[in-house]
């Protein structure tokens, strides 16, 4: 095998080795969509939790003010 053919094979093997599902557009779109749904839920949960914490703080303040 001459050196050029060897390099070509080597490059081809390297490319094969680096193949990941995200190289495929269809798969990538599905995975991105999944990430999008997860992110929206994550943000919703965090906001819900911080709203609960704010409410709790506000009612604690009311109790303190009422007591005084």
């Amino acid at each position, binding site marked *: 095998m001459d050196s050029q053919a060897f390099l070509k094979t080597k490059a081809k093997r390297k490319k094969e080795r680096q193949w990941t*599902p*995200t190289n495929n557009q269809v798969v*990538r779109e599905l995975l991105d969509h*999944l*990430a*999008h*749904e997860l992110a929206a839920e994550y*943000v919703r949960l*965090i906001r819900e939790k911080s709203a609960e914490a704010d409410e709790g703080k506000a009612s604690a303040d009311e109790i303190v003010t009422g007591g005084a």
Partner: protein
Amino acid sequence: MIIEREWSLSEAARMLGEPQHRLIYLCEKGVVIPDFGEAKGRGSSRRFSARNILEFAVALKLRELMMPVTAIAAINHVMRELEKLVSREIPGFSLPRSLQKSNAPELRIIIGDGPKLHFSLGLMDGPPRIFGGLDLTGLISREKGGRGSGLKKLSSSHALTVDETAAASKPETAPYKARLEVNVTAMARDLSLKV
């Protein structure tokens, strides 16, 4: 300004208690993409972010459970995108640090019969919601059988959309014969990342 800590390959291997060659394998397979420089030849070195360390931890756990690398690469891609999208809405959000907080939602990876990939997300005191349902058959057969065929399947009949599947076969209600679950939040909490 937050300066992100970087880890070298040997530091990452030491932290995870794994030999370096396992981490190199995961990088070469595209499972973990070093955030701070990819090795491009003699003298260059890979540098990893905290998120990369979590990706390694998840990947090594899934490898231990015999999951193929292509499926793990897909899972890590979802986690990378998740971080990107959430940080747009919640400034300062980053993996794994935001998952280490006591009030952080529980993120789990679930592989059910099929095999199908799901993620679950929920607070400690509430029921989790299930997302996904991506059939991994295509990804696995691509890895085993080489070129194309598996992916063709995946991109047509096997690839259900996220919404359809989430409604049709939720792992907690479906009569699964087997189910594999990895708690990403717990793994993030176990990492002792010295910043």
